[in-house]
């Protein structure tokens, strides 16, 4: 697929900034996205190359604006919905529930 993931030889992206003592995860949700991706890999409903192809199907503009684990999360959600584990409506409902819980928590 000729997508935004294939960056070799592209101009204008600037230098790679190395982070001293870089942590494995920069946010708690990244740790969870990584763990759920590996756990679902063990399920066997898809393989590594299907996971890569799923990440490649992110809309190119969005792909370039988002971080590494956002690509992982996108690929995971795409495979979970394509293989029938979750519906998009269920994911959206859960996101609304979490937003409501967060808002309720901040008001108390």
């Amino acid at each position: 697929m000729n997508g935004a993931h294939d960056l070799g030889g592209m101009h204008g992206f600037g230098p790679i900034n190395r982070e001293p003592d870089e942590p494995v995860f920069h946010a708690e949700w990244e740790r969870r996205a990584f763990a759920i991706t590996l756990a679902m890999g063990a399920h066997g409903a898809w393989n590594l190359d299907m996971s890569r192809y799923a990440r490649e199907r992110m809309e190119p503009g969005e792909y370039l604006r988002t971080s590494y684990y956002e690509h992982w999360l996108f690929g995971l959600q795409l495979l979970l919905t394509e293989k029938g584990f979750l519906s998009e409506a269920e994911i959206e409902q859960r996101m609304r529930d979490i937003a409501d819980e967060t808002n309720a928590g901040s008001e108390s």
Partner: protein
Amino acid sequence: MPVLKAENVAAALREGSTARLAQDLPARFVCGQRVRVANINPQDHTRIPRYVRGHVGVVDSDQGVFIFPDAHARGEKVAQRLYSVRFTGTELWGPQGKADTAVYVDLFESYLAPQ
């Protein structure tokens, strides 16, 4: 695929998994041989970076036999030999490249043709 039980998770993570296969296959190319990379543009998964498509390189090493990712992304498990191919900067980037730049790309056998 065997069920991964909770008590086996730590060992499974420690050992990891590999796409390398024990199966042997005849090698179509030898080290030092000039090869041209296929110019293909499939809408699904491939591991050929765009910047080497259609270009000529030299086989630097034979990496062995692996699961072929392009077919695996469609759910087919096919064994194929993988080579590390060396390209010069000028071959890939023309006048903006350097002749003494060496770019190594791992490429599967079906991506390559004798040159």
